[in-house]
């Protein structure tokens, strides 16, 4: 009986066709973090030609992020401007991750209608599409906005192309005297606008969290003073003009306080100024050293600052309420000018190697330091609000210029093209 059962079972097993073995599975690991190929077709123009090449701005923005590799224009197979003109098969052959098309039309050369569509060429579906009406002066800004949309759609992160940069320029007059300006530009360094000019040095601009105000140091009164200026109105006022040094303002994350370096008691120390009340509290107490360049941790409870209390400048951390500071940097003999990533995990700083000053990042959890730049006179690192790029100033041919580097160090680029020396840049927060 049992044997018969076995036979039966064996027969059944033999007869049952083996299901096409568990579906063949191929595992792909790694891949690259290379820039995404994207086809950006020059926007079509109807009516008056726009004063800005929108698709060019978008293309540059995306390329500057290091995350995108726009196809060369000569590689573009066709020039569709509307969805129904797209032959997806063409774009598939180009292996682009996305296809951006659009058009600009204007009846009067003053007001422009702009529309764009982003496609997934493999699925032959539109990922996003928008239409705007802007004045001619808004075209560049709009282009950055569109770049942000494309960026966010394809990377999942917010783009920073609509954010701004603040920096100080220094120009020499013909008579040898110097002219200082506080400027704000687009995130690509273009379109700089001067918000303050002075014959006296301007230093350390710092963005308020609302992106509407700047704090900075001005020597316009022959002494250092800390000012807060509202960008839209240009209204400004001095918030710190104590005896001695008033420098290195840094906004608290809630925008209610400024951390400052004051030497009103003789030695440069870190203080916290409550803007509404003018209350001042001292954070550091180290009479033998310079404590300066404060920056708030995103949690708003701690402050990073540079101090030479150890003999050489290093970065320390201290509670905003004061207390004992702890050293943060240990690698190298010079670490200064800290900035913190929006997620609070990565610190950027000026890091000297063999007497050369580079931008480096340090993982605050592991302490691992990674030098990002190969330039040699880098200063004032400042994180982009999405944390992907670091803005800094460096020297090119003996002149200060703006530069940016991706946090992975792969993308390095110069920003802006001005005839003046640029120093102490600061990347704005996202627009609210």
């Amino acid at each position, binding site marked *: 009986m049992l044997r018969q059962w076995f*036979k039966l079972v064996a*027969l059944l097993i*033999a007869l049952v066709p083996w299901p*096409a073995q568990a*579906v*063949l*599975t*191929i*595992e*792909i*690991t*790694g*891949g*690259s*973090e*290379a*820039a*995404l*190929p994207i086809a950006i077709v020059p926007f079509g123009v109807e009516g008056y030609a726009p004063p800005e090449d929108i698709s060019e701005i978008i293309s540059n923005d995306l390329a500057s992020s290091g*995350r995108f590799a726009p196809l060369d224009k000569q590689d573009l197979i066709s020039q569709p401007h509307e969805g129904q003109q797209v032959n997806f098969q063409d774009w*598939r052959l180009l*292996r682009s*991750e996305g296809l951006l098309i659009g058009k600009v039309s204007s009846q009067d050369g003053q007001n422009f209608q702009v529309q764009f569509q982003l496609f*997934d060429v*493999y*699925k032959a579906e539109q990922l996003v599409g928008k239409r705007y009406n802007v004045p001619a002066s808004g075209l560049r800004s709009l282009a950055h906005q569109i770049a942000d949309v494309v960026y966010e759609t*394809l*990377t*999942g*992160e917010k783009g920073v192309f609509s954010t701004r940069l603040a920096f100080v320029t220094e120009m020499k007059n013909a008579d040898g005297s110097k002219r200082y300006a506080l400027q704000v530009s687009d995130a690509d360094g273009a379109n700089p606008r001067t918000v303050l000019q002075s014959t006296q040095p301007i230093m350390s601009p710092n963005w308020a969290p609302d992106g509407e105000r700047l704090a900075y140091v001005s020597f316009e009164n022959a002494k250092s003073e800390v000012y807060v200026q509202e960008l839209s109105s240009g209204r400004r006022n001095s918030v710190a003009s104590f005896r001695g040094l008033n420098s290195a303002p840094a906004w608290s994350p809630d925008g209610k306080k400024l951390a400052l370096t004051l030497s009103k008691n003789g030695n440069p120390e870190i203080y916290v100024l409550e803007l509404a009340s003018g209350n001042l509290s001292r954070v550091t107490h180290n009479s033998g050293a310079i404590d300066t360049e404060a920056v708030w941790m995103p949690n708003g409870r701690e402050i990073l600052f540079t101090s030479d209390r150890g003999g050489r400048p290093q970065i320390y951390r201290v509670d905003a309420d004061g207390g004992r500071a702890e050293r943060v940097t240990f690698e190298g003999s010079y670490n200064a000018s800290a900035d913190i990533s929006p997620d609070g995990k990565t610190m950027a700083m000026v890091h000297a190697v063999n007497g050369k000053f580079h931008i480096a990042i340090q993982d605050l959890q592991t302490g691992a330091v990674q030098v990002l730049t190969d330039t040699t006179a880098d200063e004032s690192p400042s994180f982009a609000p999405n944390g*992907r790029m670091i803005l800094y100033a460096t020297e090119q041919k003996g002149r200060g210029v703006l530069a940016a580097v991706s946090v*992975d160090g792969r993308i390095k680029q110069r920003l802006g093209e001005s005839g003046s020396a640029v120093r102490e840049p600061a990347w704005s927060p996202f627009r609210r």
Partner: protein
Amino acid sequence: MKKAFVENFLAGSYSLLLHLVLVVLLVIGLESTSTPELASDPSVEIVQATVLDENLVEREMAKLEEREKQEREAEQERQLKLEEKLEQTQEELARQEREYLDMQERAELDKKQREKEAEAERQRIKELEKQRELEEQKRLEAEKQRQLEEQRRQEAEAERKRIEEQKRQAELERQRIEEQKQKAEAERQRIEEEKRKAEAERQRIEEEKRKAEQERKRLEEEKRKAEEEAKRRAEEERQRAEAEAKRKAEEAAKRKAEAERQAAEDALQRQLEQEQQERDARRVQGVVDQYSIMIKQRVKRYWIRPSNSESGLQVTLRVTLLPGGDVKSVSIVKSSGNPVFDRSAESAVYKAAPLPQPSDPKAAEALRDFQFIFKPE
């Protein structure tokens, strides 16, 4: 003087009375011996009857005769005794007479003195008294005579009645015997009848027994026959069933053998086929493996993953290919949860197309529908 006189007088009276009694007794004794009427012959009448049990009757008759004889002898004996008694009485009387005479003589000797003194007087009174006593004696004797006669008459009457009674008793006895005889006869007859009936009953029972025995034998015979028949049939049935079973078993064995042969053949065939399939499968698998690596390399080269991909992300895609390696469809089997990451994988597959396809049709078939798992590391 007077007292002596009274005493003499009483003694004289007493003597006189005694004499008188003796005389009377002598008279009576003489009379009774002279008339012996008692010896009457008891004549027994023998009833003639049909005697069935001669012996019994004869025994009864003998008994009766014996009894009568005994009675007669008893009567004779009684008469003898009576006579003896009479003689004894007479002798007693004679003895008493002699005693009396002796005593009288002694008294006469005493009295003769005194009597001679009062002879004269007593003689005279005695004369007078004698006169009166004689008269009285006569009257008493008459009375006595009458009483004796009456007594004799009563005794005779009683004797008669006794004899009659005896006769009646004899008659009753006879009747009783007769009755007994009849009863005995009836009893005999009854017994005879009962015997007969018992015999008849016995015979009847005997007959019934015989019949029952016969019936039993008959039934036994029938049963035996039925059993034999059943046995015979069962035997036949058994043989038939055995034959059938044997036939079936043989058939089954044949079929089984055939099936086994067929199964063995099939198994061999299958084994051969399987071996062939396995060889093919191994060969195909080899090709598939080789092309899987090529596909992997190619897709990997085209995969640009988001630079901030978290290490935990993983997306599974189902891919179908057209002949020639172009992508027919890509679908997400299991999303990473991150649409950008998912899309980067999908795009990688599309960009890698056409995927390397082997010329072997089976291997190409296997590579026409498969899965990709994309993960950063």
